[in-house]
């Protein structure tokens, strides 16, 4: 079990702006951490520095307090799972799993025992003598995870491991990886641009933009109390409301649903509020609430998405279970628990 600490970790490729810009992050032992962000945000570069495939420009990577930033990848004791699996095509499943142990000069009998244990762990004992090309994508993925784990590494790194699988298999593998990680109890860093993967699998989600950590926290914390509009938007749909201060109630911003308490900026300025589409209740006109008109209906079975427009012209998204058969043009009445509003930090 390894505790990982990144301290002002920076990567600058020759002559460019930093790919990773002074990030600091503590990963408690045994946690599953996702680095989430769009491509080019520095998440993969961070992972490569953790693995030792990229040199650290400045800053520190510490495993249990010991700086490993200059330790070459082959000595760092990390398990790495690649997006395209990177299984050795000329070796059988068994030989792939044994490779790391052979490098460690483990005895033949011990290798046999540990490979067998791994095969059982990833449920592939019946395919031990197959070559990677004879396996399905999901099976190859499990071999790749098994191969990374047989060496009993200090940390496990996964680089978009589910990107090449189809949707159904992807969901299965999410559960498989998460269960396995919990069982083994290994500190895990998972890189993805898929917010659903990050939210469902992680103990800690680290949202990255432009080489910076925008916000790090539990999935629920990231979703419910996003710090910025970018974070709010990346982890789900969101209504952003640019609200002026309410002259009648000091310390409150004026919204279509009434005054919302905010940390007041200067006089005459506005605040940005976030409101998740599922926080809004929609009822037929006549029920007390804020009147609006339905502009678009997107029905998808369990959920229906409405685009609504207020009398002042502003639009809002609402996501709800399909309780009423509203149609485009219907007048409706909206209500919301004012505590669901989040005041966002300004981004400069």
């Amino acid at each position, binding site marked *: 079990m390894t505790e990982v600490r990144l301290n002002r970790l920076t990567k600058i490729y020759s002559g460019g702006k930093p790919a990773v810009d002074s990030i600091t992050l503590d990963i408690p032992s045994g946690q599953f951490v996702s680095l989430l962000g769009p491509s080019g945000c520095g998440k993969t570069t961070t992972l490569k520095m953790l693995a030792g495939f990229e040199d650290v420009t400045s800053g520190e990577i510490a495993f249990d307090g010991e700086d490993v930033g200059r330790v070459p990848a082959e000595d760092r004791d990390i398990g790495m799972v690649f997006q395209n699996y990177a299984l*050795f095509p000329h070796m059988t499943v068994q030989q792939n799993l044994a490779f790391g142990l052979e490098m460690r000069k483990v005895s033949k009998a011990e290798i046999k025992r540990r490979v067998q244990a791994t095969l059982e762990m990833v449920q592939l004992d019946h395919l031990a003598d197959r070559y990677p090309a004879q396996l399905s994508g999901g099976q190859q993925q499990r071999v790749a995870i098994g191969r990374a784990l047989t060496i009993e590494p200090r940390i496990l790194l996964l680089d978009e491991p589910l990107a090449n699988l189809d949707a159904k298999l992807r969901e299965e593998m999410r559960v498989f990886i998460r269960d396995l990680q919990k069982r083994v109890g290994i500190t895990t860093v998972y890189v993805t641009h898929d917010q659903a993967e990050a939210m469902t699998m992680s103990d800690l989600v680290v949202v990255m933009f432009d080489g910076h950590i925008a916000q790090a926290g539990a999935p629920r914390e990231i979703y419910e109390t996003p710090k910025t509009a970018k974070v709010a938007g990346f982890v789900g749909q969101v209504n952003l409301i640019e609200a002026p201060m309410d002259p009648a109630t000091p310390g409150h911003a004026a919204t279509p649903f009434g005054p919302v308490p905010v940390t007041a900026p200067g006089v005459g300025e506005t605040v940005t509020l976030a409101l998740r589409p599922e926080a809004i209740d929609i009822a037929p006109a006549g029920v007390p609430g804020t009147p609006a008109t339905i502009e678009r209906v997107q029905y998808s079975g369990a959920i229906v998405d409405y685009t609504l427009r207020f009398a002042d012209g502003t639009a809002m998204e609402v996501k709800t279970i399909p309780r009423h058969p509203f149609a485009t043009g219907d007048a409706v009445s909206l209500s919301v628990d004012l505590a669901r509003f989040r005041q966002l930090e300004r981004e400069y």
Partner: protein
Amino acid sequence: MGRNVLNIYCLAVYTFLLAPIFVVVGASFNAGEFLTFPPQGLSLRWYFTFFENEVFLRAIGTSLWIAAVATFFSVIIGTMAAIHYVNFAGRYKEAVRVAALSPLLLPEILTAIALLFFLYDIGIGTTTMFGLLVGHVLMTLPFVFMNVSASLEAYDTDWSMAARSLGARPFTRFRRIMLPLIKPGMIGGALFSFVISFDIFTISLLLKSIGTATLPIQLFDYLKTNYTPEAAAVSTLSIVATITVVVIVEKVIGLKMHKF
């Protein structure tokens, strides 16, 4: 209809191109004194003549020896060049490729003359087989380079990275991962190299030392003064030898490479 015309056309072209080879093979079984086709009676007499002809036997020995040694060095140098070209050449990639393939692009006679001058200028000359070997390595290098580069282009660098994360040091990564995966390209290159070397004429003509005629040179010398079916017998045997090499390599090593 159009397809049939095309098929017949292809068949005609191939027949035209390959017929001379069958004529040579047929002529080698001639019982008569002259190189004629169809053969005047069937006999193996010219094969027996050949096996008693020490000059030809020595030439074949020389050719096989040079082909083997040249291939050995070609495979080593060509593989290293290909690895550099694919992984490390960076913005000089195109220049490296043109340089490696230049023996193919330049007329062989030009390369031969240049090498001849060069070898005498640096004092090595053609008294030993060294110059001849250099020429053969040079001419066969592009074939190894092309074959190995092709298999390296299909090589996923993540394989090396995966091996690295599992604790493999650079030489182990090369030996256990890259080498087995580019081996098909190296074997293909070696086969080409061997067959090409066996066939090189101009370079051998200019760079051979006294008494080290390769088979094509010896055959040429022979045909200048003789016109017996023995030449056809020698040609047939060298065709058979070439095919045998290809088949043996395919059987011994080739089967392994199709396993994945």
